[in-house]
């Protein structure tokens, strides 16, 4: 299966691992990630104001590109996913916004047909769950992570707003836990897993971010987690910067270890 792929800014720089292993694992699982040509940064965060148009255009371009290829659009980074899915929803449900965005887009040198929200947007995890299937992943696992107690950290961006993301139950998600189980490890369920890490406020109020990150990491540790997995570079940064109780890894790395693509440096 071929899908359009939007890596995002951080995956090219600080979060290369998140990207690298996503591609490697996709190959093994029979999914071809076709990187969108000339993609532009999503902006890192969705600005909810209805009159913010220009800041959402990079997402619309990516969506339109995927539409032109008749492929769903896949992202790995939680933030890109959140921005692109919310933008897509606005294109579908806010005709005023869609009209303005299409007007901007029509000025592009290689403008394609007006975009009206036709593309389906998947997070890589959704791809694993809904397209590949966790059962199939379980079969593909070469190095099961047996005995490992791993805490899933969703943060806020994968789940909310729930009606738009439509990713999982925002109050009691299970997708990453199921993913962890498929890799042979034991998921640790803890109540802070869907709370915000402090996000971009770290530049504004480092203490606030520290407080939030600590709460998350402590909660995971208290529930016996040996490791936290996340899909978001910013979550990883905040958790690692502010806490040291539990190591934090990207979910794609974990997948790569289980599939035998990556050496488990922690093993033994």
């Amino acid at each position, binding site marked *: 299966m071929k899908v359009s792929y939007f890596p995002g800014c951080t995956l090219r720089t600080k979060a290369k691992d998140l990207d690298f292993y996503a591609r490697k694992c996709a190959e093994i699982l029979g999914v071809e990630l076709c990187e969108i040509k000339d993609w532009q*940064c999503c902006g890192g965060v969705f600005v*909810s104001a209805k009159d913010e148009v220009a800041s959402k255009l990079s997402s619309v371009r990516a969506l339109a590109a995927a539409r032109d290829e008749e492929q769903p659009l896949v992202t790995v980074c939680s*933030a890109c996913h959140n921005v692109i899915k919310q933008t897509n929803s606005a294109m579908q449900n806010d005709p005023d916004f869609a009209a303005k965005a299409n007007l901007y887009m029509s000025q592009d040198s290689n403008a394609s047909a007006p975009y009206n929200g036709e593309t389906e947007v998947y997070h890589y995890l959704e791809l694993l769950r809904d397209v590949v299937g966790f059962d199939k992943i379980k079969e593909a696992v070469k190095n099961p992570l047996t005995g490992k107690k791993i805490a899933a950290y969703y943060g806020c961006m994968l789940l909310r707003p729930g009606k738009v993301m439509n990713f999982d139950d925002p109050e009691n998600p299970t997708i990453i836990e199921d993913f962890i189980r498929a890799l042979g490890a034991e998921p640790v369920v803890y109540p802070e897993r869907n709370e915000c890490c402090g996000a971009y406020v770290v530049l504004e109020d480092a203490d606030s971010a520290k407080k939030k990150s600590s709460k998350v990491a402590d909660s995971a540790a208290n529930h016996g987690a040996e490791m936290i997995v996340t899909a978001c570079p*910013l979550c990883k940064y905040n958790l690692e910067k502010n806490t040291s109780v539990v190591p934090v890894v990207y979910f794609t790395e974990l997948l790569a270890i289980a599939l035998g693509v990556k050496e488990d440096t922690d093993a033994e």
Partner: protein
Amino acid sequence: MLNKTERQKEQILRMSGVNPLKCMRCGKCSGTCPSYDEMEYHPHQFVYMVETGDIETLRNSDSIYKCLSCFACVDRCPRGVEPAKIVEAVRLTVIREKGANHLTANEIPALLDDETPQQLLMSAMRKYSK
């Protein structure tokens, strides 16, 4: 003619798409908010104060920079009010004013470390400056 407060209110409501009259003042947003203690004015107050036109107070408060946009209040509100969107709209009315950027490019290098992801810079710029 609308006076300044009324204009501001109307703009905030239009940008955010929020109808504060739907609020039943249950306070679940503030019961939910992870940044409650960092804020001078809390999510339910944002909704109420915009409704009553007490907007300047909000614009002058640091509270507008404390919201994480984590959308927990949006998801849990039983009335579909979406307080986070109103916080964002109030903040935008401030930073869209000339010279009112809350974070400028010059301030950034001092805030960085080796691990800072690009995403953080992008989103902080998006949230705090125009």
